[in-house]
């Protein structure tokens, strides 16, 4: 099943690369493979390069291409949904804007490590009140505050426009970005760390209380990375692979009761023990996931 998913991803990735990148980008993309192969050498003991590469199977081109394709797909959809959201804000349609807010963000939350790797874009799109100087505060959470706290779309037109242009900039930049297996592995852990430090505590969406959307999206983003690397992982450490798969299942099972239609219930509906249980399941998953890089040699 994972194979079936991965195949079209490769095709898509290749076509995107051909369509979007000049020769330079394609070359730089090839370069990202080099460190991966090296790290394979260094974790084994003094045989030849090719033998090492075979021994560790450290060619992650398929996975990397698959992830780039996934990221691009998410960002494409992110731009589309953000536009709908910002249109509603600019039209002064408070209720529609509120409905579109959390689902649009999920596309972003699934690939957050990619955005974070692109410097200022993450704070511009996703900073919370206090994360940046008050004068620089913009993006989703600025509008979130207006919609839920001030209960108005007034004065939000400029913020809506900047948000959409930031989203489009992200779309443009991701084409040429260096993605390697190491970014994927650390990204998967970062996604769960994000959940662990701000989503599970309800701090991320302090006005809208839509934290569980972000929570689910972060976990989905981590799972996508795991799925892309799973075959390599299983070939090297079956137990670790099984453990990670089981704990993804356990966490998703723990999250399932909080689903509400296409979305999730308000964070305010969670009891203390719900939060604790989610948090513990998350830690249980993140710990073995953080060993994926060791096993893969990236």
């Amino acid at each position: 099943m994972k194979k079936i998913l991965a195949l079209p991803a490769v095709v898509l990735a290749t076509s995107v690369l051909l369509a979007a990148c000049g020769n330079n980008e394609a070359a730089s993309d090839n370069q990202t493979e080099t460190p991966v192969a090296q790290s394979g050498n260094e974790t084994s003991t003094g045989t030849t390069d090719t033998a090492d590469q075979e021994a560790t199977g450290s060619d992650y081109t398929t996975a990397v291409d698959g992830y780039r394709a996934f990221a691009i797909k998410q960002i494409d959809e992110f731009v589309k949904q953000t536009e709908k959201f910002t249109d509603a804000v600019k039209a002064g349609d408070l209720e529609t804007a509120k409905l579109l807010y959390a689902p649009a963000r999920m596309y972003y939350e699934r690939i957050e490590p990619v955005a974070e790797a692109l410097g200022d874009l993450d704070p511009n799109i996703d900073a919370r009140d206090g994360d940046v100087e008050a004068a620089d505060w913009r993006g989703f959470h600025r509008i979130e505050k207006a919609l839920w706290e001030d209960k108005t779309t007034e004065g939000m037109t400029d913020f809506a426009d900047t948000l959409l242009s930031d989203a489009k900039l992200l779309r443009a930049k991701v084409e040429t970005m260096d993605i390697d297996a190491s970014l994927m592995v650390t990204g998967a852990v970062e996604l769960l760390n994000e959940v662990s430090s701000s989503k599970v505590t309800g701090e991320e969406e302090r006005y809208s209380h839509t934290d569980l959307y972000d929570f689910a999206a972060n976990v989905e983003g981590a799972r996508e990375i795991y799925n892309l690397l799973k075959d390599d992982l299983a070939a090297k450490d079956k137990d670790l692979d099984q453990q990670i798969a089981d704990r993804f299942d356990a966490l998703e099972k723990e999250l399932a009761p909080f689903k509400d239609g296409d979305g999730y219930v308000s964070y305010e509906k969670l009891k203390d023990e719900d939060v604790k249980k989610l948090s513990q399941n998350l830690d249980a998953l993140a710990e073995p996931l953080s060993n994926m890089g060791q096993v893969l040699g990236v």
Partner: protein
Amino acid sequence: MTEQKKDSLKKPLSRREMLKLTGVAGLGLLLGGGGASGLMALGRKSSPAALDVNMPDNALPFYGKHQAGIITPAQDFICFAAFDVTAGSADDLRRLFKNWTAAAAAMAAGEMIGEHNATLNTPPTDTGEAAGLTPSRTTLTFGVGPSLFDGRFGLQGRKPKGLRDLPAFTGDALDPQWCGGDLCVQVCADDMQVAFHAIRNLARIARGHAVLRWTQEGFQRTGRADPAGGTPRNLLGFKDGTGNPDTTDAVLMDQTVWAQPADGPGWMAGGSYMAVRRVRMRVEVWDRSTLKDQEATFGRHRDSGAPLGSRGEFDPVDLKAKSADGQPVIPATSHLRLAKGDGSQQILRRSYSYSSGLDAKTGQLDAGLLFISYQRDLEKQFIPIQERLAKNDKLNEYTVHTGSAVFACFPGITNGGYIGDTLI
């Protein structure tokens, strides 16, 4: 980057090796402000071997007939943790015990856990805050609570008869957040950072198999503060533990502390039952009571620790002594008299003081005693003593029991075996 990676290929260093590498600097750290005399006091053995970093004399054996940390003279600090098992099967639980065993043996020896502590592209297998520190007489003592014997692991038939939650005692104000647990780990060490490191790493290893239920840190005066090793004082200012049985008397320990084969079940032979109580002290109230009242409460003199009417801390306790007005010298409701009873029940107390910040509601200190006792039989020893105290102890005016748990602490682990291998 490549250079760094190559360095990382070197085999992992033990905490001791790291200390060796740091050479003179390491020794300087070890000696700290106290100089050589301070070190000797800390080590309690004033032999120069204490300076040989290759052979730290402050490592206690992890493997043995009994678990360390029970009759071991109390170290300076405790980190106590109770866990709930989330693992779904006995196999998973066994795996956890095996992983814990390897980690515990390494930590007791002052070594780092696991293989990957110098590999740059992976989270280190040891969290690292005890790197370069000596073993600090670390002991890790493991036990299982009554709740482990429900249906989950097929252990129903192996539950010791006397292992059940303590009965409700008069005046208990238990808060579920300080009660119970499927498993417990008592970590004691002469260094708080070393002790915390142990609990943190055990919790990390347990992820997916067990979660922390409650933890409590505790302290007593350090060996450095009291080189003579006198009886420690609790936070009410009184010596605590004067009446403890002699842990060097093997026969007495078999009678009072170690579960015997005939006691049943067989897997507990050589183990011990632990009672844990988190006892908050109303220190603000205590500080307003007169010395006379305080001494009457304990039945001892504050300064010397001697029983009221006597001079030396270890003078025999004369419960029959009357004062001129015909009243008992050691009051009927004093802690000493009620704890002692007719002398037929003895327990080994191994308590630590705790201070956990403020009670947010009142602004008063949340401080007190993490009471821990070990005994061969909870029902014959701890429970009758605590029942007497709960009903009549004058000390109850100043204390409130907020947490409670009991655990069956395994017999010792043999080298090559694992924690709980007699049970599961």
